């Protein structure tokens, strides 16, 4: 199976450094979420991996080979970069057919992926009549054309309706289960947390984190619990005696920072206080990500005032 290996990758556009000494590997068999704010260098990195842009320094390889050296690359790597890029005057089928033929892929595959992506009915319509969601599906169809080991999708859920978003999530999970390498960029945190096993986080072109999703969440999680009880005053005292500081929320629930459910549950049991609800608080990917990038943003604001743009 094929992994994506990026080593010391750097790309300057004029005076702007879009990608800064990136080193990471994307492994097969799992979905890797590629996170970062707009302008963090996600799209640039994907273009560099595909050999579309030339790196200023460093290298990007697929299974040890640069993309440009792959024979029939669509059979190895499927990429969705920009759903608007397909020529509007062509029909969806002709667009896919031209791609398939160039890589020695049977023309019937074009019909299959059109079917798989729900575009069979509009296969002979010109792409300029397509909605954003349909173009997105066409871009995904093109990525699937060669049944590749490696799939790179840049913001695949752009413009998709809720069913489409569920569909693409299931598709990515399935491809990872089949042992393929799946790299998916997004700036939508909740969505990414619904499909990614592993995360690579970029900020201003630099690598901020490269670790399993759960580890990323845990590393940013301070334990905490929320509870509801009929004898709040007594439990509050009991918890304060144990060194915690319960705070009452507007809805009547209490939260305790730094405590685990075991500790609060035990405290309640010892005092014979009935608990109506006891929940551990989990950090969402969004919170963990924001905590990570806030540090980075402060550093960035202090070191350089120039804004980066999505390149």
């Amino acid at each position, binding site marked *: 199976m094929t992994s994506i290996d990026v080593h010391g990758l750097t790309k300057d556009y004029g005076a702007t450094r879009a990608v800064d000494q990136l080193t990471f590997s994307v492994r097969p068999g799992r979905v890797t979420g590629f996170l970062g704010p707009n302008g963090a260098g996600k799209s640039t990195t994907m273009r560099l991996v595909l050999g579309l842009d030339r790196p200023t320094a460093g290298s990007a390889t697929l299974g040890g080979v640069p993309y440009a050296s792959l024979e029939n690359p669509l059979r190895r790597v499927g990429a969705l970069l920009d759903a608007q890029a397909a020529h509007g005057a062509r029909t969806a089928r002709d667009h896919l057919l031209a791609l398939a033929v*160039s890589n020695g892929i049977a023309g019937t595959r074009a019909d299959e992926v059109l079917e798989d992506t729900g575009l069979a009915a509009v296969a002979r319509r010109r792409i300029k009549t397509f909605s954003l969601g349909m173009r997105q599906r066409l871009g995904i169809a093109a990525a699937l054309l060669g049944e590749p080991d490696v799939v790179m999708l840049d913001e695949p859920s752009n413009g998709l309706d809720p069913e489409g978003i569920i569909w693409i999530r299931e598709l990515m999970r399935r491809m990872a289960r089949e042992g393929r390498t799946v790299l998916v960029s997004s700036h939508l945190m909740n969505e990414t947390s619904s499909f990614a096993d592993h995360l690579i986080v970029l900020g201003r072109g630099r690598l901020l984190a490269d670790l399993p999703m759960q580890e990323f969440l845990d590393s940013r999680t301070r334990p905490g619990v929320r509870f509801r009880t009929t004898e709040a005053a007594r439990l509050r005292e009991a918890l304060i005696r144990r060194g915690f500081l319960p705070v009452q929320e507007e809805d009547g629930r209490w939260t305790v920072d730094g405590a685990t459910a075991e500790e609060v549950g035990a405290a309640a049991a010892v005092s014979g206080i009935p608990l109506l609800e006891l929940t551990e608080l989990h950090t969402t990917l969004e919170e963990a990500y924001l905590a990570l990038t806030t540090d980075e943003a402060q550093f960035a604001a202090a070191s350089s005032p120039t804004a980066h743009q999505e390149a």
Partner: protein
Amino acid sequence: MNTSTTAVLHSEWIKIRSVRSVSFSLMAIFAATLAVTVLAFATVGQAEADSPGYEPLFSAFYALNFGQIAAICFGATALSSEFLNGALRISLSAVPRRGLLYGAKVSVVGGLALVMGLITSFATFLVGQMFMGEYAIGLGDPGALRASFGGGVYLALIALFAAGLTAVLRSAVAVLSTLIPFLLIVSFVVGDVAGDIARYLPDQAGQAVLHQNPAGGLGPWTGLAVTAAWAGAALLAGWWALRTRDA
């Protein structure tokens, strides 16, 4: 020719036939030339044949002036369709060897333009002469066969010239709005003023092949070779632009 070259050529053919503006321009080379030939020869054909300085062979290809505009449109739109909205990224993802992609595209554009050019050139000669009555000349007349063949090659070279410029400028609009006024206006005006230099302009040089006895320095094949040099230079510049730039 290995499989992948054949495959990429086939893919480029699909790309050209599947964009209407490109395939229409290709057909317009024939349609425009024939339409103007019929119109011009049916109305003023024989009337001018008596005037002094009339050159029956060169006049037979008068309508190529219009066909060459379609040839420019064909060369320009065939290439520019790759530069719209980052379409080139999709093409290069499929065929990352830029030389192979560019070479295949240029070959298909050149090949199609040559076939269409030859059909057009022979057809315009033969159809035009049908209206000429007693003044008619045939393919057996001196220079006629060479001019008909050369006219087709000329159209292909003009299409390739436009294709190369489009690869440099990445825009059909830029190429069309430079090249067409140039051919229609500048070349005529400059051609009258500065004869020596004008002979080496891409259109004037190549059109030497349409004359029975080309006046001035350039022979029919030399003239065509000068146009080929222009086209080759434009294609090389296009290759250089594609090879070095980020897609």
